[in-house]
């Protein structure tokens, strides 16, 4: 019954979208959003009440799964995540009302947005229906992978989608601006603000994924240049470029064509990333199962929107103006953006070319060292230019305010320093210990006090209780080796310790005999990196607040 209701709402949403496209329903965007909220609500209800008549709930849930992860499980699977995707896209569409656009502009925007929503709703219905039903509902589900049952991972996808879909706003705004030849300063400012919003969410989403990988999966590693990670980073880079170029256009009125292109690029790259990831073509830790139908449908969707964007760009050209000589400050910024573009190209080649080559000679993979040899060197010029460019501008009496304005950039530098230090000073030690033994690992004094068994909601664990002896005192902590009985899988729950600006990760494994294997990973000064990333996000939020205030003042 629930599934039928959900699917009915999905078909209703599609019909409302089609009607809205041609006949402009008043408050059509609100109606569609409400339908999607209803659909999501039904889907969530099915997950929370263990309704195994829905295939999705059966495949990804279990009666003994904790409530938080039943809720997070709604977006943990492909179908559920696409449902959330459609919902968030619709919410962004509604948020366009806040921009108070002129009515003709708004109706073109609505048309394009509804068309985009419709593409995704078609995809949802034909390729990833969350309301697919089983005739005879089983009594128990197959459970979500326990490795994914983690708090930071549960909020990671929604942030990613809010970020990725956030780029639909500058995308749509620039397309509509081209069509209506409206390149007023107000539009550029709106492009700037919507890009900031999208970038804030995307940075947070990527950061959450890194944090999760750091203590749960990577054992101290927080970035692997995994194809899926790269495909999230490419829109981020394009978003950063778009942000800065839009800023130049806003302040100087130049580079309008570049501004339009750099505002369309992030969203289009998001579509391409989505296609590559969900089609299952990539070999990665984030793998989705290979699904040709999904891949084909998404490819058609992406190609359609890329083609439409190119067509609109060519059909409604911006009239060229007299060439204005770039100021040196702008030149520096454009050079930096140029190198960031190159770094994005290096990422794209490193992610897509191996895929391409794999068709010809199967078994070709690219070692992640490639990215260290290309991405990092290409970022050196921008990082050198940045302090120089800032120093040129901070020459007024407004030192305090300037520091605040450059919070994100300061965060970036902090992060780079943290990354450099923690990578060069990284250390690892593995040893075999018995209960009561005290050893030196990575120059840290560690004692295994006790071992006991722990019974969790859907797992059973062997837990090691440790004591870390520091100059400042003692730290007691636990690390576990867990066995999830529902999936018959083993999982290591590491301990993460803060020691000043550094962090320690401790892994604990029970050996077949009476000993235990303990591994300590030391990451000196990595807190600089994490704080740097957080500062980058705070800087973006601060930037948003100040610009919205300015907008409110002018109204």
């Amino acid at each position, binding site marked *: 019954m629930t599934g039928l209701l959900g699917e009915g709402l999905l078909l209703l949403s599609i019909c409302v979208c089609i009607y809205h496209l041609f006949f402009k329903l008043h408050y059509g965007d609100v109606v569609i959003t409400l339908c999607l909220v209803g659909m999501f609500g039904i889907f969530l209800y099915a997950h929370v009440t263990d309704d195994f008549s829905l295939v999705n709930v059966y495949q990804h849930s279990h009666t003994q799964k904790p409530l938080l992860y039943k809720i997070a499980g709604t977006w943990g699977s492909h179908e559920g995540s696409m449902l959330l995707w459609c919902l968030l896209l619709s919410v962004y569409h509604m948020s366009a009302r806040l921009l108070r656009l002129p009515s003709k502009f708004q109706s073109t925007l609505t048309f394009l947005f509804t068309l985009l929503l419709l593409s995704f709703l078609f995809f949802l219905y034909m390729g990833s229906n969350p309301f697919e039903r089983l005739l005879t509902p089983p009594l128990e589900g197959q459970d979500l992978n326990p490795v994914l049952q983690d708090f930071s991972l549960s909020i990671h996808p929604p942030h990613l989608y809010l970020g990725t879909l956030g780029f639909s706003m500058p995308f749509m705004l620039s397309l509509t601006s081209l069509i209506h030849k409206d390149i007023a300063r107000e539009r550029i400012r709106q492009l700037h603000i919507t890009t900031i919003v999208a970038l804030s969410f995307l940075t947070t989403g990527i950061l959450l994924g890194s944090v999760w990988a750091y203590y749960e999966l990577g054992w101290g590693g927080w970035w692997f240049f995994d194809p899926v990670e790269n495909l999230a980073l490419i829109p981020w880079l394009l978003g950063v470029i778009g942000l800065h170029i839009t800023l130049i256009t806003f302040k100087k009125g130049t580079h309008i064509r570049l501004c339009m292109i750099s505002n369309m690029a992030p969203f289009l790259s998001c579509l391409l990333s989505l296609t590559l990831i969900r089609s299952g073509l990539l070999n990665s830790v984030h793998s989705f199962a290979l699904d040709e139908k999904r891949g084909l449908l998404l490819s058609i969707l992406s190609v359609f929107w890329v083609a439409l964007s190119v067509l609109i760009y060519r059909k409604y050209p911006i009239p060229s103006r007299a060439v204005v000589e770039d100021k040196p400050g702008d030149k520096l910024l454009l050079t930096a953006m140029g190198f960031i573009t190159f770094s994005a190209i290096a990422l794209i080649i490193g992610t897509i070319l191996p895929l391409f080559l794999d068709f010809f000679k199967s078994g070709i993979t*690219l070692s992640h*060292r490639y990215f260290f040899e290309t991405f990092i060197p290409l970022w050196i010029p921008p990082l050198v230019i940045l302090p120089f460019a800032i120093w040129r501008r901070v020459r007024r009496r407004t030192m305090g305010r300037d520091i605040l304005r450059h919070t994100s950039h300061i965060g970036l530098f902090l992060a780079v320093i943290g990354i450099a230090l923690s990578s060069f000073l990284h250390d690892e030690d593995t040893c075999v210990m018995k209960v009561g033994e005290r050893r030196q690992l990575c120059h840290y004094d560690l004692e295994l006090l006790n071992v006991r068994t722990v019974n969790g909601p859907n797992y059973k664990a062997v837990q090691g209780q440790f004591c870390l002896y520091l100059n400042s005192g003692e730290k007691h902590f636990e690390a576990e080796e867990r066995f999830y009985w529902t999936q018959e899988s083993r999982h290591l729950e590491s301990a993460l310790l803060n020691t000043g600006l550094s962090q320690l990760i401790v892994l604990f*494994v029970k050996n077949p005999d009476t000993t235990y294997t303990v591994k300590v990973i030391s990451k000196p000064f990595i807190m600089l990196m994490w704080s740097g990333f957080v500062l980058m996000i705070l800087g973006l939020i601060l930037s948003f607040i100040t610009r919205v205030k300015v907008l409110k003042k002018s109204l």
Partner: protein
Amino acid sequence: MKLKLKRFSTLFAILCCMGGTFILIGLAFKNNIRFFVTPAQVYEENLIHHTHLRIGGVVQEKSLLHKGINHTFYLIDGIMSIPVKYTGILPALFKEGQTVVVEGHFDPEKGTEFMAHTILAKHDENYKPLLKKAPS
């Protein structure tokens, strides 16, 4: 005239940077290609002396032995088997009968045992073992 020169030099600088970038990318790409093979391919194509090998296969049942933090097992693909040695903590999803990928090289002296520096055991959203079939 001066403007033309400036424009030309800007374009030239851009082209140089682009050229440099693509050379950088091309070289890095070429140097970091790794071939993902099966145990049978290792012996068929005589890859024992390769410095970087990635081999995918299944952990043979009842072949896993532990000596403290040293682990040995046999990696099989139904045709050939390779003895693998790994020092450290095995990844969480590692168990007998599981599909894994090992990275490393054969021991330089005898070339009989594979010393793995990395072991990857992964599975996707819907677990489906990925077993490459060696050419028959």
